[in-house]
């Protein structure tokens, strides 16, 4: 939590004002039982109606002060808490944007999203309640105890004894029930999982005529859920009656010992009433405090998870932000890998081992290999999603590490393996690479990617609203649009990472033909299909991170058994 204090600086005033106003409310609350005791003891005892009315009015005035102060306090607290949350989210998002894929892999999007939404919300609420409670509950607690002590020291010992007991009971119950909750949760997960399994595998279950068995399996799980659920609530539902009972026993003690004091004349009846009132006040304050402790402990773990994100430094760093002068020389390879080895993590298995490869300007190069052979890893190094563990990657004869991100990445048009589009209009999506692309440029790219036909059938054509992820397109359409997106603005290097997998052979072939005829860029085709890379100027065959063959189709068929195996399995 401490590390997050730096986000408090913009809200110092609010964070100060909120508890202060709360103090006003609290003071009025503590004063009221005292005043009422006075009303009873002095007013009623002396039959002084005027005294009673005056005090009654003071009590009402105090309530009005109380609620005004309280509303103001809540307002400041809400402003500070949500403002801090806003700042944390903003700064966290900016920080995440500096991450390279190594860091993103480490956390995973789902986890980062949870930290961004859930954890920060937890912290926000903890701050809010902390601001409101921090002074109030202890003040009520201490104030009540002090007032009690002022009235009668001995009797107030009951208060001092009761405080730790209740806090201990609350924390103890929470501790015991915690593992039980986990158990109950697991049973619920099981029920939920069996349901999911059966929905997903409905065809298999029915094909194998296993409905009755699956039902039996489910019934066992749901019975188990009932049992663990009942078990946990049996214990947890003791808490509320127990604390109430303890408070009431304390009141009994006050009555008895107070009675003794009254008998010897050191205490009045009204003071006993006040004592009882303080006890009720204390009880709610005590439970508030124990709950705040629990919520702070929980917020603490959230804060830790948030800090983990802030503490992670990006591994791929931009060392130069200035553009570099490039010498145009047809003999310099467009892309060159020199002794490149790469592992996703230090000490992990190499995904690429000692790769040497030259790609000349305007060449089309195919990369082929099975799953896990290192195909995607190679292309990840070109736009610096990751940095090579050993060796260097050059683009236009310059080490990629010496480029600014902008200069390097603006050369590249990437079609990722997973075809996703983003929420917004189709036109906006196609303008990702070049924000000011003209319609002509866009239409040209759409034509090459074989998407024109279906784009023209869309409602509103280029203004068509794309849903998040591009869900309102079929897999094949989406893939073609991601190709179009990469081609807008004529990138120098086009990288297609297995980007035709959802296309049928005919469309795939037409697409490759269109690219060949219209694009002058250097093209890298990554594929599992031999047909896709067959006509490339160079084919790189990968197997388990090693390059096992580089050359043209005909040569590789003779010299590279892995290539031959892939090709034959797909065509014979």
């Amino acid at each position, binding site marked *: 939590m401490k590390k997050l204090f730096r986000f408090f600086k913009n809200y110092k005033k609010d964070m100060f004002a909120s508890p202060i106003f709360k103090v006003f409310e609290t003071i009025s609350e503590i004063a*009221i039982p005292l005043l009422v005791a006075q009303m009873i003891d002095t007013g009623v005892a002396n039959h002084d109606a005027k005294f009673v009315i005056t005090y*009654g009015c003071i009590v009402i005035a105090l309530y009005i002060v*109380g*609620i005004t102060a309280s509303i103001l306090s809540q307002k400041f*607290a809400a402003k500070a808490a*949500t403002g801090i*949350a806003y700042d944390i989210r*903003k700064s966290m*998002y900016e920080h995440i944007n500096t991450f390279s*894929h190594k860091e993103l*892999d*480490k956390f995973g999007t789902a*986890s*980062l*999203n949870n930290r*961004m*939404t859930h954890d920060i*919300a937890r912290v926000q609420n903890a701050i809010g309640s902390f601001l409101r409670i921090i002074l109030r509950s202890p003040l009520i607690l201490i104030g009540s105890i002090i007032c009690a002590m002022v009235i009668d020291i001995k009797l107030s010992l009951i208060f001092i004894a009761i405080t730790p007991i209740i806090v201990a009971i609350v924390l103890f119950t929470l501790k015991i*029930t915690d593992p039980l909750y986990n158990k109950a949760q697991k049973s619920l997960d099981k029920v939920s999982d*069996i*349901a999911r399994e*059966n*929905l*997903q595998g*409905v*065809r*298999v279950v*029915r094909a194998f005529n296993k*409905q009755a*068995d699956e*039902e039996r399996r489910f019934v066992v799980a*749901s*019975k188990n859920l009932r049992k663990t659920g009942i078990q946990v*609530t*049996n214990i*947890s*539902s003791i808490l*509320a009656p127990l604390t109430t009972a303890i408070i009431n026993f304390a009141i009994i003690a006050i*009555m*008895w010992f107070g009675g003794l004091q*009254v*008998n010897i004349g050191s205490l009045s*009846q009204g003071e*006993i009433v006040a004592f009882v009132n303080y006890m009720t006040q204390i009880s*709610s304050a005590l*439970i508030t405090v124990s*709950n705040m402790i629990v919520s702070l402990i929980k917020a603490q773990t959230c804060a830790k998870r948030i800090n983990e994100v802030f503490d992670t430094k990006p591994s791929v760093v931009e060392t130069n932000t200035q553009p570099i002068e490039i010498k145009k020389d047809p003999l310099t390879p467009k892309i060159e890998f020199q002794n490149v080895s790469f592992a*996703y993590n230090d000490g992990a298995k190499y995904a690429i081992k000692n790769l040497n490869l030259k790609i000349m300007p305007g060449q089309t190069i195919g990369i082929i290999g099975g*799953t896990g*052979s290192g195909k995607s890893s190679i292309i990840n190094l070109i736009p610096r999603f990751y940095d090579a563990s050993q060796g260097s990657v050059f683009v236009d004869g310059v080490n990629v590490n010496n480029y600014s991100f902008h200069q390097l990445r603006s050369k590249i048009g990437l079609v990722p393996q*997973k075809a*996703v589009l983003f929420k917004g209009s189709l036109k906006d999506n196609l303008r990702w690479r070049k924000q000011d692309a003209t319609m002509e440029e866009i239409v040209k790219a759409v034509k090459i990617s074989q998407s024109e036909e279906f784009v023209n059938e869309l409602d509103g054509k280029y203004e068509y609203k794309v849903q998040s992820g591009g869900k309102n397109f079929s897999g094949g359409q989406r893939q073609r649009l991601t190709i179009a997106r990469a081609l807008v603005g004529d990138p120098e290097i086009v990288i297609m990472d297995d980007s035709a997998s959802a296309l*049928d*052979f*005919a469309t795939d*072939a037409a697409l490759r033909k269109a690219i060949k005829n219209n694009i002058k860029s250097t093209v890298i085709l990554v594929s*599992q299909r031999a047909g896709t890379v067959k006509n490339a100027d160079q084919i790189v065959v990968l197997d388990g991170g090693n390059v096992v063959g580089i050359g043209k189709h005909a040569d590789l068929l003779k010299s590279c058994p892995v290539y031959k*195996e892939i090709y034959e*399995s*797909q065509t014979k």
Partner: protein
Amino acid sequence: MQKRILPTTKKDEKQFRKLQKAIASLPKPSFNNPEKIQPTKNVITPTALPASLWQESNKGYIESEEKQLRVTDSEIILDSGGKKIERVANIKKPKKRTTFLRVLKYAKKHWYLFALSLFFGFANTLFEISIPLLIGRGIDYIVGAGNVDFDMLLKYILLLIGCIVAFAVLKWLTNKTANDLSYKMEEQMHNDMFKKFNKVPLKIIDGSSHGDLQSRMVNDIENITDGFVTGLTTFFDCFSTIVMTVVFIFMINVPIAAVIVCATPISLLVSLYIARKTNKLFKRQAKELGDMSGTFVELIGNQKIVKVFEYEGRSIQRFDDINKKLQDSSRKSMFFSTLTAPTSRFLNGLLYAAVALMGCFYAMDGILTIGTVSTLLSYANRYTRPFNAITEVFSDIQAAFASSARMFAVLDIPDEISDANLPSLKRCTGTVAFKNVAFSYVPDKKLITNLNLTVSKGQKIAIVGPTGCGKSTLINLLMRFYDVSDGSIEVSGKDVRTVKRRSLRKQFGMVLQETWLFNASIRDNIAYGKPNATDAEVRRAAKNAGADFFIQTMPEGYNTLISQNGDNLSQGQKQLLCIARLMLMRPPMLILDEATSNIDTRTEIAIQTAFNKMMAGKTSFVVAHRLSTITSSDVILVMNKGNIIEQGSHKELIAKKGFYYNLYNSQFSNY
């Protein structure tokens, strides 16, 4: 009343559980695995998750001071689920009153728990509100110096002790019976729901999102018991507290009681107003949180694209817009939700002051004793609390109505047409005939029209065509997952609709592209169709399928547990296991759907070999993605846009120079 102060009611406990679940379901940081960047598909939709989380995170606090985001799950799901949900929901919308009665039917079997819970609730309230009365009476015997009646005081103290103990025990029993009842009802509803899943026509399951069905089963049922059991008992509890308090104070002093009762509509209105306002704000906040999470997953999950297209600046801008909106709505909702406590304190305070004033005057006139005034004060002090609790459970009850409508919508789906009276398909000759078959998923969109095909024993039928051409439709009809709209399909000379589904499906072995394994050992998965198979049989089947070699390399061989998502197996390995499953059963006919991608060459060859071995001498239907594997088929059905456009052997189709010819040649094209 200590209601809702600590996580002791079933509801609070569930919130707790949900929170823990959410925390537990957070993905572990995955090292060295770039594929894991994508968020794992969760049961709960990404937008629903953080919102419900947020809701959880705020429970368990006190005095409802922290009552944040009380949006019910069902609403969130509706927000995020989109069309599919409505499709199912439109099947039938049960009426409000009838849904309630139908839920009550679930309680009927446990009526004694229901009655006990109400009885205990009533009894504990009685004891609970007697406590201040007894305290007041006791105080009356502490008049002043030398004027304390210890005998009477002791008598009241003993009475009080009895009362407190009785209250605590009864209170616990109230909670327990209510909890037991809801768990028992839940169990029954879960089972009913699951049984329904097994009985509905397949088109229902295909036509709705699985996540939605699952959430109807888990979240909605939880909402129902929360609202109807916990909610109703709380309601009853609070209601009886109010009534009894009113009765008690009327017995003590009529004018003061009248003042207290007058405060009732005011406090009810105020807390209703705040509750409604907060609910609205929470919904807005939940929606914005969902938006944020959606944007986050979209942009960070696809960071490669963002980076290479240099979209970072625009991405930060987009996030900031949502961030600002979220801050605004959460500030407002935090403020409003925290108003409940101070306003009720204020109203209570006014009441308290009024009662104090009046009480003092009555005491001066000797109408009331000091102890009675103290009793009245403590009643006044807690008078508005049950109103807050009631308004709180009010939204739960509303949510329960919505949820039960959603649950019954599923339970009301008609079952598949019963085949109990039909004969079994006994003798299997291996012949299949499609006679003038017409079929469509949606009535006005014809898919298959007038399909005729006769398959004799041992023939191999291949189905080819571009992606999404409807190849799997034929499988659906053959297995009678769906019924034909017109014409008939005959297996072994019998119309499939005239025999038991069980007996028909037994004739077919099926391997689908989307492999399905369940969370159990490899052995159990292979023996799925023949649970009594011996280890040796399982082993032989695996060997035949070519799966034995990789199973041996697994940490515990055949006893290795297949993890939840089957992460510990590759796609190809999963398919080999499914083939092994069939190898064990040796059905007379086969349906195979070839895998398209994500399988490395070696495994692919293994699968192909296994397929061929299994098909030997059997009537088989193969959905092919790679034309090279099916050239030897007896009949090739070429499908496009749902229609069979060509039909014949490889040679015939090539000679025809039609669609198949082009398709076949495109894979050898020079571009």
